[in-house]
């Protein structure tokens, strides 16, 4: 049970990074930490006590396997996170070029 609570704590650390930091890159890193914590949580759900890697080999009937479905989910979620982070960083680089600062208190041309 403590493992799952630690995952939620890591999620909250990432959320603090997104909410409270002023630098654009720190916001991106906070979002990445949140995403890693959710992936970790998904893998830990599928743990079976005493299980091994879920690959079928010749002596498949005698073994206990861990749950393979969360592993497939996490593979996809990691790639989605990669796409999100890459797009965020590309936009952050172009924002730096236009506004000459990474500080979000300066980048507020859109108001109201």
């Amino acid at each position: 049970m403590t493992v799952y609570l630690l995952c939620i704590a890591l999620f909250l650390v990432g959320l603090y990074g997104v909410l409270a930091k002023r630098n654009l890159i720190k916001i991106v890193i906070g979002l990445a930490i949140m995403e890693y914590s959710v992936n970790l949580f998904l893998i830990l759900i599928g743990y079976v006590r005493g299980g091994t890697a879920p690959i079928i080999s010749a002596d498949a009937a005698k073994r206990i396997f861990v749950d393979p479905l969360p592993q497939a989910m996490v593979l996809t979620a990691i790639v989605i996170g990669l796409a999100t982070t890459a797009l965020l960083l590309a936009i952050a680089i172009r924002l730096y070029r236009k506004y000459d600062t990474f500080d979000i208190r300066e980048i507020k041309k859109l108001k109201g």
Partner: protein
Amino acid sequence: MKGMTVIVQKVTQIMCGIIFLYGIYIIVHGHLTPGGGFAGGTIVAGSFILLIIAFSSEFLALKKEETGSSILESSAILIFLVVASIGLLLGGIGIFFINFLPKGTIGNLISAGIIPIFNIAVGIEVAAALLTIFLALLIYRDEVIK
């Protein structure tokens, strides 16, 4: 951007081929060992990116590289879609994504129907996509510095 020191360049010359082969091993054995398309594709892309970082980026014609890897990425996805849709057309059953090649004995390299083909297509696609992202950011940075 500037390259790195002579030690890094010599070690890269030896290692990048080995990393590339390791990535291909993980892609092709995706149905026998953990790994598969995504993980292997990332390792293959890592070997190319290592080359570009160790040697400086003036060595290569980066724009042509980026166009080439972008076209490779799109073609890999199209191959994936065509193989997945073959099941729709043939066989009389007409089911999308069906496993229509013969499945051999468990544990052989050539077995499990169309899954190795999907692994290879996804591996090429992920490697090309990561390389395109890296080259796009690098080209933008070089243009800005100039």
